[in-house]
């Protein structure tokens, strides 16, 4: 009986348009944020911070980016990692070449560069659809990584094409320990997730979803396909670009272009599909799932004391099997599962 909508009347459309119309949800979210900001850095070990939470947040951000494109605007993309790479390498170059440029501004510029690349590679989406487009986005993936290995300027003429992220210093404050990095990433991700939520509940978001659900009808209603799709590509790439920059600066440190390979694109794609296509919450759930599951499996496999090669292969198999299992249980992802859970809770204790 704790989770009830009843009795919470909305007296204005403004109140009804809130991101979390149910009060319990709002309280829960605020509590979660408070914990994430205050308690987590105090209590979590550096391992949890730097090996679990930071990548989780970064991947969530990239997943939100991909979700904007694939989940909301319906354009299946396999080139996420390429946009992340653009973000990272562009940020690196901006900081390198513009002395005194604030790091956050560099991240934004990196994101914008990714957005430009996104627009360029989004152009074909006006004609190409579905899996054809997905396969075509691989062109982005391979081409961008190729450019990064081929153009020495981009890697500051490092012989092997590897870049080393500069220290993150904001207003003289050095974000060098796991907890500081964590807080920075958390702030960026929280703000950007909020912005994404806002976009999705206003006209841009609706235009994306309209194009996704039925592009001909969307056009008849007055949305411009080109503008809508390209905007989706731009915004999505921007998100991925910032995520890519964080991936380099707050997580890996020293990176080669190969770190942004197809594999990464696929991992982000898993996240949104497992988490829930077309759901910001799903991006987080999916990222958590994909980051945690292998760790969990690894730990379990070790505790079983299996021979390592058997354990590794079993891990892979269980990972694949779990993906399938979750899809069968709920094809719309963890976010839907969550939602159904809430609906059940709302009806509780009556079954229907």
């Amino acid at each position, binding site marked *: 009986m704790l989770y009830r909508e009843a009795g919470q009347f909305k007296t204005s459309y403004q109140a009804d348009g809130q991101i979390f119309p149910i009060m319990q949800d709002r309280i829960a979210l605020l509590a979660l944020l408070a914990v994430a900001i205050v308690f987590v850095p105090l209590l979590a070990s550096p391992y949890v911070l730097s090996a679990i939470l930071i990548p989780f947040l970064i991947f969530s951000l990239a997943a939100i980016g991909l979700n904007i494109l694939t989940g909301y605007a319906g354009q299946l993309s396999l080139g996420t990692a390429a946009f992340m790479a653009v973000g990272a390498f562009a940020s690196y170059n901006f900081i390198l070449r513009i002395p005194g440029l604030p790091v956050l501004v560099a991240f934004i510029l990196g994101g914008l560069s990714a957005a430009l690349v996104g627009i360029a590679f989004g152009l074909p989406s006006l004609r190409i659809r579905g899996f054809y487009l997905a396969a075509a986005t691989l062109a982005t993936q391979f081409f961008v990584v190729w450019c990064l290995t081929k153009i020495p300027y981009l890697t500051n003429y490092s012989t092997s094409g590897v870049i080393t992220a500069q220290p993150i210093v904001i207003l003289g404050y050095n974000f060098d320990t796991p907890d500081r990095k964590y807080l920075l990433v958390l702030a960026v991700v929280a703000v950007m997730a909020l912005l994404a939520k806002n976009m999705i509940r206003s006209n841009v978001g609706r235009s994306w979803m309209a194009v996704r659900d039925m592009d001909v009808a969307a056009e008849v209603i007055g949305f411009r396909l080109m503008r809508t799709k390209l905007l989706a590509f731009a915004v999505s790439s921007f998100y991925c670009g910032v995520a890519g920059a964080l991936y380099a600066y707050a997580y890996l440190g020293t990176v080669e272009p190969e770190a942004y390979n197809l594999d990464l694109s696929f991992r982000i794609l898993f996240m949104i599909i497992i988490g829930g296509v077309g759901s910001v919450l799903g991006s987080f759930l999916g990222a958590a799932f994909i980051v945690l599951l292998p760790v969990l499996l690894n730990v379990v496999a070790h505790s079983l004391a299996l021979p390592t090669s058997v354990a590794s292969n079993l891990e892979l198999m269980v990972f694949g099997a779990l993906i399938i299992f979750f899809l069968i249980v709920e094809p719309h992802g963890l976010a839907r599962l969550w939602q*159904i859970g809430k*609906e*059940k809770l709302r*009806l509780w204790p009556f079954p*229907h």
Partner: protein
Amino acid sequence: MTPYLSVNNVEVIYDHVILVLKGVSLQVPQGKIVALLGANGAGKSTTLKTISTLLRGERGDVTKGEVQFKGERIDQLTPNELVRRGLSQVMEGRHCFGHLTIEENLLTGAYTRSTSRSELKASLEKVYHYFPRLRERRSSQAGYTSGGEQQMCAIGRALMAKPSMILLDEPSMGIAPQIVEEIFGIVKDLNSKENVSFLLAEQNTSIALRYADFGYILENGRVVMEGAAADLSCNEDVKEFYLGVSGAGRKSFRDMKFYRRRKRWLA
């Protein structure tokens, strides 16, 4: 007499939470036409999908009750098995195979039959005879044909399986009045000549009751009324809400009153 098809106290839930059918029971005797009437969202299509076991693909679950066809339980069978046993469904909303031509669409309908080429040809001819428009469009991809043509195609496709019982979901939707009459003519024809039984969900109540032997009225997932078709069409409420006639005969759509009296069965 055991009914040909019987649905006993079926309860259906979509998505684990949305309860749609709340204990529906109905019977179709052999060789009869039974109409299933009801407002939008009453659960007619859901009932038909429950019978043809197509619910599984739409994340619907039958949580209670059972369905029997020719005296056997069928709720666990596959649709393929059902079609083989003679139970075909025409789905709501056409569902033609867009990339196949009209003729190929029709031929897939005969998938379960292992017949000679000439027999197949005869069946095809019969469908073309019923729907001359299809003959003209036989080699166009179904995805490009008009709404009505697709509807005809869907009905024709079900006929190709030579079923002994057909579930028809809104056959008249989007069809020109003349053809609607023809479709019902075909239904009657098959029913009387080939002893095919029908369960039809239909919104065009007047014509449905005209051709049916028996009718059920579904509201909010419950059967609220059942009876011989003739009796139903005399019922005051049915007349007012489903046939659009009340005391003073048929009313123009132009001068509808804004407030209506409550249906008696809701009382």
